[in-house]
């Protein structure tokens, strides 16, 4: 009896996002049937892919109970480096993508060194690098808008069999991340570390290296995300990516990643980002005042966080020792 109740509440807690998602889709579908047409759905996923790619990376960090506030600045600086590679060295788009991701790896390494080696807490480290990375980027551009060569937009607006490139990249990133998290030793160790850093150390895992890699992965994803978004616009202005860290964290948390570590998945981040975008576009579709949209989004995130908090309480209650049979 109690077991089955437990299972139901467990299911609701674990799948809160999917349940909310289903509710939102059904609601909009009734309000505006055209919302559920393939074109509209493809558009949602496309718009979600930018935050989504970064949210997949953020999930790695959140799994270790860390946080990365610098993603917005990485989304700015990395495509900028790629832009120089294209404009000044005349390199083609694929090289530029690699340049952007490599920049992300370097920036992530800086975070990792500060956190793992110098033991500055992630919040402060990434708060500082948020300023540093953006400052460095705008120093390079002298706060001017940076125009990319035209090929980049051709790339950004291209597609394969009618599927827009951002969606393909998003899918690829999510799939790779899923494989890494669910099916590699490193991935499982990330979960173990998030569940109990002390336990991971005792089990002989190389905890520093695990932690370092998640920050590198997070920055690399943020870099790719920034590049994909720039490829839509073709130019980079000084405020690009500002405040994006909060959207990215919100998407990951909405996708079921716990801020306390150990819980979350790449697939969840995809759902989280898509859910946010669905709510956003749905509000547009149903003609809700533009200004009210962030408020409704906020409320939905609030519910997700509330559920996360309750789930954590439930986990703690479960861990409490019972000393006699129930």
């Amino acid at each position, binding site marked *: 009896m109690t077991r089955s109740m437990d299972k139901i509440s467990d299911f609701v807690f674990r799948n809160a996002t999917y349940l909310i998602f289903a509710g939102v889709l059904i609601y909009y579908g009734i309000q505006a049937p055209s919302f559920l047409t393939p074109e509209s759905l493809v558009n949602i996923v496309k718009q979600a892919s930018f935050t989504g790619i970064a949210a997949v990376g953020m999930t790695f960090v959140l799994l270790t109970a860390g946080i990365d506030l610098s993603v917005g600045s990485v989304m700015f600086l990395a495509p900028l480096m790629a832009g120089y590679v294209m404009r000044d060295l005349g390199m083609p788009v694929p090289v530029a993508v690699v340049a952007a991701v490599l920049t992300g790896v370097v920036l992530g390494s800086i975070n990792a060194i500060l956190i793992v080696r110098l033991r500055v807490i992630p919040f402060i480290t990434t708060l500082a690098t*948020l*300023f*540093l990375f953006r400052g*460095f980027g705008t120093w390079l551009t002298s706060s001017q808008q940076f125009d990319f060569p035209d090929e980049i937009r051709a790339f950004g607006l291209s597609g394969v069999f009618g599927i827009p490139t951002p969606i393909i990249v998003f899918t690829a990133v999510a799939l790779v991340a899923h494989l890494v998290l669910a099916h590699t030793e490193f991935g499982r160790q990330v979960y173990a570390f998030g569940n109990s850093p002390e336990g991971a150390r005792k089990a002989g895992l190389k905890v520093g290296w695990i932690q370092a890699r998640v920050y590198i992965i997070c920055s690399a994803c943020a870099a790719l995300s920034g590049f994909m978004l720039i490829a839509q616009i073709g130019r980079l202005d000084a405020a690009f990516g500002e405040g994006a860290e909060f959207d990215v964290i919100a998407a990951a948390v909405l996708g079921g990643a716990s801020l306390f570590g150990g819980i979350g998945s790449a697939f969840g981040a995809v759902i989280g980002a898509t859910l946010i975008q669905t709510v956003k576009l749905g509000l547009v579709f149903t003609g809700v005042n533009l200004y009210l*949209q962030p408020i409704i989004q906020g409320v939905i995130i609030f519910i997700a966080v*509330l559920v996360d*908090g309750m789930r954590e309480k439930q986990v703690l209650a479960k861990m409490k020792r019972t000393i006699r049979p129930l």
Partner: protein
Amino acid sequence: MPSAASSPSRKWASRLFLSDYFVLYLSLAYVAILAPFLPTLLNPANISNVLSNLWPLLVVATGQTFILATAGIDLSQGAVIAVTSVIGAMLIAVTGNAAVLSNAPIWGVFIGEQGGILAGSIGGIAVAIAIMMLVAILIGLLNGVSVAVFGMPAFMVTLVTMIVIGAVAIYLSLSENISNLPDAFVTLGKGDLVSVYFGAQDESKIPRKIIYSFVTYPMVIAVAVAVAAHYLLNRTVFGRQVVAVGSNKRNAEVSGIPVRRVIVAVFVISAVCAAIGSILYSARLEAGRPTLGAGTFLLDVIGATVIGGTSLFGGKAKIIWTFFGVLFFVLLSNTLNLMNLSAFQVDMVKGAVILAAALLDVLRTRLTRELT
């Protein structure tokens, strides 16, 4: 026993590092080093400018200090500033600009052509300020209850309130500024009590612009808030409870500290401080602005507080540290401006300073460990 007194110079260095006044010394040293290269730094006009930037930030950071003392964080302060700024302005504006505001939801309800509904009424400004405080208290309660009762992480709760309240602020006026605030209100932001004239004595008519205001209303308000906060945090029973919660929450619970009540209270204090900051900022701008406190403002607040020496892990917080931290931060921004660096280069230096402060904190912790 570890040899703490190994060398006198080392001991002296740790004393300096661990002193309450360390950041003040750092600020003074910074000024002393830069003054020869930046002659404008010590100009009365510049000092007056530094001070006018200092006071509102001090008030907001004071509120954040209480939060950090309990090992929490409040990201919603900027949004509180914005929403109270708009609400205050819409109530007391002398006239309303239909061309700008006629589409806003507040038009015709709280503000019209003839100004805000409290405009011109006796005590209207006081009532408006009371309403601003009330709004802040409600937001603080929402944050505090979510964290203390529902066990949600402060970071996410205040992130969400930041998004929602920030959006409300923009929605109210449809992102337009509300200007034409009454003089009595504007005085709160820039009016001076004591001004100093640095010119020759025989001049009979002094042009306004060469009078430098030093003792201003913002200064009086900020100092009053900071002193009250200092007593509250460091001298009262409540302050001891705040520190106890931040030092060791489980111990506080066992020791009969009303942990939940304390957490709710610090979020309310933080929001109220933000609202007072909002009065100072709005009055200085002579407008209610829905984008006040947006962008990296909040990171300035947390950065300044942490540089002062307040720990993000709770249990270690002093208002005097925050004062020095804010002073250092404002001086830094000011000098970087004087060097004609761009706003973004200022950001970069700020980042480096936050990092240096964090590393310094790691060093300090190590030193304390060595000394005991």
